């Protein structure tokens, strides 16, 4: 079949449409992913309840319907979108639901009432719907570029909203939540998308002037003072988050995102050097001055010290999480076979420790591998796209996922101090799910234009 005399596929009769290979691959992978989810749920019921119960369908069906629905939306609206991103998202999200359900079963067994799995499924369906909305209503990769400054306002607004009186809420010492009518929401999760759009749009227009560097001092080319302005304001904003919202992770996430994007846009490594120096000197000062940061640092450096272990806000949770991981060993205790409930917040902040305990090192490697693959697909979009804004947006969103994994999982495994960020797609919590599924939606949308862009080039030739 030759397309050499065609400029577009849109007007072709149906029978001549390009076979959506990516979607067919995706379909098979989704069958596998949903099968895995069913297997996980069954294993948990058998392991904890010793019996399969019909409420299995309550957990399996809504999620599966949502997955099938977004797959169909992609077939119609973005048939050339990347084939791996959705299945990876589904595997991670469903694994999170399974583990949360497993923890719920324990809660029920000890007559507790705080359950999370039902809510998690509801949020997941909503989040997948939001991703579908993105795919449907964002018609092209260039669409978001129109809303760069709106994104800035929205992003900063969301970021600062927990500091507002009445609706702002502190949980576990970090002021990252807003609460309205009984629902709590972590607006910072959505802010990261808005700010990525803003950074990408802003840097695409300013990259030429930012790339021009001024005088040499000690053999290093220093950016001109006015070009440093935006960096300094982002730096100040990050430190404000750190100081006012008590969270090192969020602060590091936004600043890291900005540094990466400005580096990709300008190609100047001086921004990385200056940026990291500024951030870490700021964080170091904060660790000395602010009590809660000092505590986190102490708990990170000497968690097994009895003094820090016993301290309020000390290392108890971290140490119990590490015990859980160690208990998992190579093969894990099996889903439903471990004791993840011993760790506080096992279903949210420490879900990775829960999974590490039950799935072992093998499971941890699989989870990390999936994240890495997801991020790699995102970066691949950036590599292949010919539009600079889309490149920045794709790499920015991918890097946000990567950095968030690093900060959260690194926090649990003592690579970095523990922070209040959530594990993307796995942890219980609606805001995080919605934000990450929107990211998936945006990545799918951009990836579709990579493929169709290439195809139209091929067609022109």
């Amino acid at each position, binding site marked *: 079949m030759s397309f050499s005399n065609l400029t577009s596929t849109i007007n072709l009769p149906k029978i001549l449409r390009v076979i959506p290979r990516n979607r067919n691959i995706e379909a098979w992978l989704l069958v596998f992913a949903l099968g895995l989810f069913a297997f996980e749920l069954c294993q948990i019921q*058998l*392991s904890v309840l010793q019996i399969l119960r019909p409420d299995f369908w309550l957990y399996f069906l809504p999620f599966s319907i949502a997955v099938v629905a977004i797959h169909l939306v992609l077939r119609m609206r973005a048939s050339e979108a990347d084939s791996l991103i959705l299945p990876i998202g589904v595997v991670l999200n469903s694994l999170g639901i399974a583990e949360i359900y497993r923890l719920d079963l324990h809660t029920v067994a000890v007559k507790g009432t705080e359950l999370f799995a039902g809510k998690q499924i509801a949020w997941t369906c909503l989040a997948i719907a939001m991703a579908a909305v993105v795919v449907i209503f964002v018609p092209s990769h260039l669409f978001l570029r129109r809303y760069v400054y709106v994104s800035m306002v929205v992003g900063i607004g969301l970021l600062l909203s927990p500091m507002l009186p009445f609706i702002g809420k502190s949980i576990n010492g970090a002021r990252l939540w807003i609460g309205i009518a009984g629902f709590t929401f972590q607006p910072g999760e959505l802010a990261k998308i808005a700010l990525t759009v803003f950074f990408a749009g802003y840097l695409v227009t300013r990259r030429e002037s930012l790339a021009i560097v001024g005088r040499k001092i000690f053999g290093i080319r220093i950016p001109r003072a006015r070009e440093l302005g935006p960096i300094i304001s982002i730096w100040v904003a990050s430190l404000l988050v750190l100081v006012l919202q008590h969270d090192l992770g969020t602060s590091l996430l936004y600043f890291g995102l900005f540094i*990466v994007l400005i*580096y*990709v*846009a300008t*190609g100047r490594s001086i921004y990385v050097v200056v940026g990291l120096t500024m951030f870490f000197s700021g964080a170091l000062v904060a660790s000395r001055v602010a009590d809660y940061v000092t505590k986190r640092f102490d708990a990170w450096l000497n968690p*097994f010290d009895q003094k820090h*272990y016993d301290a309020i806000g000390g290392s108890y949770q971290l*140490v119990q999480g*590490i*015990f*859980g*991981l*160690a*208990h*998992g*060993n*190579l*093969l894990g205790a*099996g889903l439903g076979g471990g*004791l993840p409930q*011993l760790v506080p917040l096992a279903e949210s902040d420490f879900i990775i420790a829960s999974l*590490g305990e039950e799935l*072992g*090192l093998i499971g*941890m*490697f699989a989870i*990390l591998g999936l*994240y*890495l693959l997801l*991020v*790699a697909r995102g*970066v691949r979009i*950036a*590599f292949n796209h010919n539009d*600079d804004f889309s*490149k920045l947006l794709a*790499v920015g969103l*991918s*890097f946000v996922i*990567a*950095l968030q*994994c*690093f900060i959260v*999982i*690194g926090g649990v*495994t*003592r*690579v970095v101090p523990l922070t209040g960020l959530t594990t993307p797609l796995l942890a219980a919590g609606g805001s995080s799910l919605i934000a990450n599924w929107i990211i998936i939606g945006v990545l799918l949308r951009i990836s579709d234009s990579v493929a169709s862009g290439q195809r139209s080039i091929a067609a022109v030739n």
Partner: protein
Amino acid sequence: MQRELRRISIVIFLMFITLFVATTSIQMVQADALGQDPRNVRSVYDSYQKQRGSILVDGQPIAISKPSDDVYHYLRTYSDPMYSALTGFFSNYQGATGLESAMNSYLTGQNSAQFFEQISALFSGNPVTGASVQLTIDPAVQKVAYDALGNLTGAVVAIDPTTGNILAMVSTPGFDANKLAVHDGVQSTNNYNVLLSDKGEPLKNRAVTELFAPGSVFKIIVASAALESGKFTPDSTLPNPVKFQLPGTNTFVQNSGEGKCGGKATVSIADALRFSCNVPMAQLGIMLGQDAIRAEAEKFGFDKSIKIPLPVTPSNYPTGMDPAQTGLSAFGQFDDRVTPLQIAMVSAAIANHGVLMKPNLIQSVLSSNLAVLSQPTPSVFSNVMDSTTAGKVRDMMIGAVARGVSSNGQIPGISVAGKTGTAQNGVGAPYTLWFTGFAPANDPKVAVAVVVANGGGMGQSGRGNSLAAPIARKVMEAVLRK
């Protein structure tokens, strides 16, 4: 931008590598150490999730996990305090000692020998049941040994010299391990503190972990070293003064009766051993030199880490002594320190024609489906001396029992080889009383060591022959009765 994207990709990759390394470090490298952290309750819960294996003596459990109705599912139960030196205890709150600790991986089903069971358990969901451990202990001999020690503080070790199998191992006072196995934390801790503060120190395993001054039983090693040197025979004579001044000191060594050793101007090595005389042995030791004695002692197992599989405290013959100290060490004083097991090994080696078999408590380890996971076969620990030399030492030990000061080891109608010891522990301190030997002397079925600590409650007036030898005789009789 492509170059920057490549670099960012590398950074992302490095971030994930860091996470891979960190999880591997926690879940593999540090996993065991983290599992043993006392703040980690997982291993405790884990160990109660499945039935721990039993410890068996002649098919009967001396430690067994019985189903219980609480969260722990099983309660560890012990049959008799006479086995406490073997089993040790297994407690939620105080950890584990004895075989409960040494054989823990088998008892919990975590040993690598159960690898395939563990794999199949992964699929079946049924936890691996712990393996049971069958001991070489003979319950009748164990009971005789425990009863014979009675209220005395001390230990008995009886070994089959031809195999190294331990037939009895007793440490008194024993303790009731059930009191520590109780699931109530406060109760368990209180009971533990009571045992800790008990003057009899029942938690100490005197048979294998406690060190004692050997006194005259050490003379067997010196006599062996003398024969092995090729310069002496049992009939070689030594000067026989009433007192012997240690070289370079004003200290005199005397025999225990404070007289001569026999009535003559000289005394043979055989007679010195028979009458257990210090003066000739001190001279002999100085003539041999500390290195020759130490070499001999090490062939018997001194200074070596031994696991039976209970870890045995190495017995020690001092280094860097001057001739005076060497003289004292030659009759088991100065800083000589031994475990009863070590002394039993000395007798066992001589009984087995100079070949020392590795001492061992484990007859077999059986998985819950009765597959043999481990069945130690007798193995040679060391070739101490040739059989001719061993025969000469044996004959001297026969003399010591039949016609010497170790006479309470005699069994009517059976030839017994043996040696007593009465070790001093400093001015005014009670003596440590010993007997070691084997029977029948010509076809040995059992080698035994008995120690009675704290002078057997008689301060400095008890003797090895009066208190330790009768216990050893009863133990040997119990074996020969079979």
